[in-house]
């Protein structure tokens, strides 16, 4: 068993990190915090998940969210997708293992992966609407959010959702408010099987190694850690029984990265675009200085008079 995080004291605790610990701020030039706090991570061990949805409930509770009553369409997923209120969602997949012939029930807790290289933050046009703390947490600052949906296009995991009520983007905050005072996220606290554990990223990798060895000893020879390098690693990681086939876990992205289209849009287009407009203005100025205005001469007016009089 992983050593659980102790319950908090009843006395107020000062936050351990804040604005001075930012390493990235959307649409802003900031000096990243000189010293990084130890990187944190949430480890989701799919092999231990029993699909009880306690994490989903805890997330709603802690973040004071209410989900609409939905309809059952014959699957366990409830609601059917992430929403502005459902920041984490159990996704259930039935997988027939071709080697063992066993039917495996793969239950993946979906939600923000807190990428080290966050596509949402890269895409965001609103200064300070998305921030990344030095411990790796990527958070949306709703006061600065303009609801454009660019984060949706930037995200390689299809996570942010725009509220139709206040037109702002929502996703898992990794319970940044709890982590700041030394607690783990609400979902982790509620998990009855320790399928969700929380700590520093190093601790989590070590724990994951232990779990992967255990799974391999039980015949899951492709068991492994999902910490995709395409986004420079994530601060939410999975232990997967079949790490060679992430797509069988409700289409978990296989080797995700920020889309090249987004990179072009937010990279060369931004600078080349401004340069092109500036160049057109500059060429206009230069041309006017060199060529001078194109004026109608008195002769032109006379010719026009001749033409009209001659024919009128």
């Amino acid at each position, binding site marked *: 068993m992983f050593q659980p995080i102790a319950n908090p004291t009843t006395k107020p605790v000062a936050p351990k990190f804040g604005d001075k610990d930012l390493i990235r701020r959307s*649409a*802003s030039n900031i000096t990243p915090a000189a010293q990084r706090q130890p990187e944190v991570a949430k480890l989701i061990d799919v092999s231990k998940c029993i699909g009880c949805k306690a994490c989903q409930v805890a997330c709603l509770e802690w973040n004071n969210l209410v989900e609409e009553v939905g309809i059952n369409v014959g699957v366990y997923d409830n609601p059917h997708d992430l929403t502005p209120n459902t920041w984490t969602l159990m996704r259930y997949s039935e997988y027939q293992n071709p080697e063992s012939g066993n039917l495996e029930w793969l239950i993946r807790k979906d939600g923000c992966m807190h990428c080290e290289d966050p596509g949402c933050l890269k895409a965001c*046009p*609103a*200064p300070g609407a998305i921030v990344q703390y030095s411990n790796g947490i990527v958070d949306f600052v709703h006061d*600065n959010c*303009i*609801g*454009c*949906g*660019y984060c*949706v*296009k930037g995200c390689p995991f*299809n996570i942010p959702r*725009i509220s*139709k009520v206040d*037109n702002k983007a929502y996703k898992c905050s990794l319970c940044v408010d709890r982590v700041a005072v030394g607690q783990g996220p609400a979902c982790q606290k509620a998990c009855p099987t320790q399928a969700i554990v929380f700590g520093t990223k190093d601790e989590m990798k070590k724990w994951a190694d232990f779990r992967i060895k255990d799974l391999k000893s039980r015949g899951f020879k492709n068991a492994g850690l999902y910490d995709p390098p395409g986004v420079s690693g994530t601060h939410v990681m999975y232990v997967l029984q079949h790490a060679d086939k992430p797509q069988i876990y409700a289409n978990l992205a296989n080797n995700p990265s920020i*889309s090249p*289209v*987004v990179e*072009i*849009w937010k990279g060369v*287009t*931004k600078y*080349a*675009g*401004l340069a*092109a*407009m500036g160049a*057109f*203005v500059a060429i*206009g100025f230069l*041309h*006017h200085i060199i*060529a*001078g*205005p*194109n*004026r*109608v*001469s*008195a002769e*032109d*007016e*006379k*010719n*026009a*008079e001749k*033409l*009209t*009089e001659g*024919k*009128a």
Partner: protein
Amino acid sequence: MTTAYDVERGDQVHPGNPVTVDRYTTGARINHWITATCLILLALSGLALFHPSLFFLTGLFGDGQNTRAIHPWIGVVLFFSFAGLFIRFWKANLWRREDGTWMARLHDVLTGNEEKLPEVGKYNAGQKVVFWSMSILIITLIVSGFVIWDQYFSEYSTIPQKRVAVLVHALAAVAIICVWIVHVYAAIWVRGTIGAMTRGKVTGGWAWRHHRKWLRELVGGKKA
């Protein structure tokens, strides 16, 4: 009375000293300035979301949320307004043989050697390029704009489609702003032009110098 392809409704010569020529009707001018206002507002609100250094432009529209909300609606107004201009002007902007010659002698255009240029109708090749570029870019912008208008249309496209649309939208916007700069500069550089879109009139000399074929057609048409 037979009218040439490029003589638009309301175009008329008034003999005198100087000769004046009616170039744009009141309706066409109002139509033009509604489109112009929309285009400028779209450029300002769009640029605010295009580059972080221009985000302060959202202040002109209230705040970021308002800018995001109003930009697509201005786009819809511009689309219909420009459609009005398109219906008015498309025929006179059809490509003619002399336009190729004019384009080939662009150097003479820019250096003011107008005597070396062919006589052109109501629009020269440069104006026609601006007209058709605007038309194509506005269609590109409205289509890509709908794909990324998430407030109402988010469920009609996939995220990969939206990514392409947002890139296309940005590139088309840069292009149309550049075309707009050419359009405005040409109107300033060629003196006597702006009056066409304010009072609706140009002088006979302006028409003789820049659109002689059109002037001849107007004078000839009058006789017939």
